């Protein structure tokens, strides 16, 4: 029983108005997702479903609330919206709340972002199963596979559709496909530890992902390379951070870059616009218009027309992530609420060369836990990886920790790779830092 989800979004804004809201913004969504998990020679789990929901922002007599529901039965929705409007009336007024300026909806890029892959229709249950199986078989074919305890692989795809309707004239639709494949391999170490490693890929188009055999091979090779990992000594040293995990480090800056953090006085980046935050190699733009990009969009989460802007230019902080509400509070023009795709300034060297040039230090291939204090910039993160010795990747290390302060740490960035990680919208390249404080024994 297919429901017209654009009608649901339109109907919700109409219900909100009938219940007394002056303005409303509704987003309805429907996602069809199928996944296959495979483990040690057979299917572990198959999941398949179409799911849907609605969220609604309400502007009532100068007051604001946001509500969401998966119960879309007409009478239930009418009652839900009515109750939500009544609740909103009880709140304190907030003069900064309003729908975005209509002018900001204008000027959407006239490009085809190619977010939907027609190949989805041809993906069958058998094909998914074969891909998951092939990834496992490739993992078990690597040299040294006798140490493997277990291999879990998986693959899946989704089609997500959403419809956005604002009472001040915005309507937008988005359809996107995702295809993912992953493999995780556990191996048994001589001391009883069972280190695990993984490889995974996500793409808007199926053809963007590597072959299943490649994913399985990489996961197994990585897991076997963890055998015999030891803790190293505490020291200040050069770190080469693998592109795949560098997003864990840069991602910590996103909170202090937000308008909410600035306005709430919990951003270490307040007042830093126009100043150097990092070395000139720290060069990052927000680019929502990358064809097939995981973070690509023609309009953002408030309906604002999406456009590219610099975040950090040659180390200098240029823009924050500011939405309509906090923009009004800060008396600043909104950019966008949160990141789309990140585009990094060009690096000329591959990771092997960066390791060679580092000479001595650590190649970081994983972070474990940790956190960052966005108010002061202090951070502390668990890490694992490999010793770099004589310009070569040497023995594996684990159970170590990196600490620093963002306001100082990014000035230590001395090289970036030519290898932006394609399976995340952060698209981080390999990053090299000098004199980083690492704790171990």
């Amino acid at each position, binding site marked *: 029983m297919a429901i017209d989800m654009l009608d649901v979004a339109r109907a919700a804004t109409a219900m909100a108005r009938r219940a007394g809201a002056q303005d409303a913004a509704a987003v309805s969504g429907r996602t069809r997702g199928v996944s296959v998990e495979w483990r040690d020679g*057979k299917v572990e789990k198959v999941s398949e*479903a179409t799911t849907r929901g609605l969220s609604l922002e309400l502007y009532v007599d100068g007051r604001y609330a946001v509500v969401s529901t998966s119960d879309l039965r007409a009478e239930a929705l009418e009652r839900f919206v009515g109750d939500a409007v009544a609740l909103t009336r009880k709140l304190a007024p907030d003069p900064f709340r309003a729908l975005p300026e209509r002018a900001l909806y204008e000027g959407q890029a006239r490009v085809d972002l190619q977010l939907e892959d027609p190949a989805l229709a041809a993906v069958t249950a058998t094909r998914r199963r074969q891909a998951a199986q092939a990834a496992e078989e490739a993992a078990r074919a690597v040299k040294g596979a006798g140490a493997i305890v277990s291999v879990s692989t998986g693959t899946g795809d989704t089609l997500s559709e959403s419809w956005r309707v604002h009472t001040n004239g915005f309507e937008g639709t988005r359809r996107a496909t995702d295809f993912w494949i992953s493999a995780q391999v556990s191996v048994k170490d001589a001391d009883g530890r069972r280190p*695990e490693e993984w490889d995974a890929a996500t793409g808007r188009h199926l053809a963007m992902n590597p072959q299943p055999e490649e994913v399985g091979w990489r996961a197994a090779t990585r897991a076997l390379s963890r055998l015999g990992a030891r803790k190293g000594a505490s020291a200040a040293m050069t770190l080469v951070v693998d592109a795949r995990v560098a997003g864990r480090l840069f991602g910590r800056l996103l909170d202090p870059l937000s308008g909410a953090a600035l306005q709430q006085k919990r951003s270490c980046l307040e007042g830093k616009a126009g100043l150097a935050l990092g070395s000139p190699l720290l060069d990052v733009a927000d680019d929502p218009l990358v064809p097939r990009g995981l973070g690509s969009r023609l309009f953002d989460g408030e309906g604002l027309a999406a456009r590219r802007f610099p975040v950090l230019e040659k180390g200098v902080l240029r823009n924050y992530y500011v939405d309509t509400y906090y923009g009004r509070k800060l008396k600043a023009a909104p950019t966008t609420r949160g990141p789309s795709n990140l585009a990094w300034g060009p690096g000329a060297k591959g990771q092997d060369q960066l390791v060679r040039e580092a000479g001595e230090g650590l190649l970081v291939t994983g972070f474990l836990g940790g956190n960052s204090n966005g108010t002061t910039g202090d951070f502390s993160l668990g890490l694992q990886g490999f010793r770099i010795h004589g310009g070569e990747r040497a023995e594996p290390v684990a*159970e170590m920790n990196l600490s620093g302060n963002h306001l100082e740490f990014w000035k230590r960035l001395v090289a970036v790779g030519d290898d932006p990680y394609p399976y*995340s919208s952060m698209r981080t390249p390999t990053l090299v830092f000098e004199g980083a404080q690492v704790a171990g024994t």
Partner: protein
Amino acid sequence: MAQSDGIGRRRFMEMSGATIIAAGAADLMGCATAPARPTAPTEGIGYFSRFGVTERMIADAIAAAMSRGADHADVFFQHEVSTTLALQDGAVNRAAAGAVLGVGVRAVKGEQQGYGFTEDLTAEALRECAWTAAAIADGTPRAGPGAFHVPGRLPQRYPMKIRWDDVRPEQRLPLLTGLNERALAADPRIRKVNVALADSVGVILVADARGRIVEDLQPMTRLFLSCVAEQDGRREEAGYNVAGRAGFEFYDAARLDRVVRRAVERTVNLFEAVPAPAGEMPVVLAAGSSGILLHEAIGHGMEADFNRKGTSIYADKIGKPIARPFVSIVDDATLEGARGAINVDDEGNDAGRTVLVEKGVLATYMHDAISARHYGVRPTGNGRRESYRHAPLPRMRATYMLPGPHKVEEIVASVKKGIWCDYFTNGQVQIGAGDFTFYVKSGRMIEDGKLGRPVKDINIIGNGPKVLELVDMVADDLVIDEGGWTCGKDGQMVPVSQGIPTVRVGSITVGGQRKG
């Protein structure tokens, strides 16, 4: 496992391949007026009959799920209504309300599962999900249940004195504005205050191929207060939060006092902090939220799914000594009103107290139905799920260490140079390698047996079995933390509790910023 791009998800949810735990109101979503009053049912389908759900529909769905030879099948209905009120810049100027309604159908064949779910609670939609799930098996049909029965009365572990749907916004608002005023008045350095009050009332129904049918009404509330303080141009932010399965009565005067006092103290104390040392040293963990040590160092590794797959570092250690004889650790569903309490698990199994470590010896894994069948043991009531969109997994409930023989004073006095920790935000573990971390938002130096200056923002990293061996003192002051902990595993978030007496870890790596 990195199935989709991590940006835009919850602050603490960006990791892959490992489990995580986080406290605090990273995002409070959901929450206000109940569209219909949830009332505790007595037998059969009580609550869900209002959505047109009948025993016939359920029996048909289970029969469809068993139609290709599954060993077992179940359905999981969920309805939850929730409200959050939030204060920022001095006014309660935002609310969030949510309603969740849906059903998941599962077919199980050995250790293999098929799963489908829908928001559409009609016979046709349910049957379609069931057929999807059934495809996991490929054999001759097995019979579904002929009739349903309610298996005995459930315990009542979350009595609500003042039900959330009886609490008007006019009663909730003063709680938030009052906390704001008190926090600002408590110290002139406080510049910004955020308060959020969330409540939800959820009802679940589990019915299975053996004809069992169970409904449970599960309330939850959480209050979060955070402060930003300024001194000599420096700023610090900290907070305190409390959570439980309770009604509005949860917020008595003593609890509200504690929320304000702790949040303000935690914030302004950070101005005194000195850089933390880096390297291996003794660490004393204060009673209460330090239970995060147990959650990461041993809890996840004792979830039976990792063990039946052979991927946990504890996979071959049952019956073996792993800690000093005064170390006993349990996972307990029975703590009245605790965030991690449940009357029944999400597979309809009884939920009690599971002993993980008894006097230093590894005793029992935490099971869901699949792992219990694999090991030939009774389920332990640890089969939990985030929502109807997910199949259940073995998960923790309230995990804590029992009191030991030492005194807090002697533990602190025994440390020549180390740190004492009492404020944590999050942690993570690698199940197989056993390496785990937890993040210390603040603590204090210990020098010559005395607590010294505060230290802050330190990650601590260790290896589970090694660290448990190094737990060499346990005090008699067990505290179950009242904070709102949420545990993430395989992309599913569930509420948990944790607790611990004051303990000493003889040596562990402290991730500070200065060479220790």
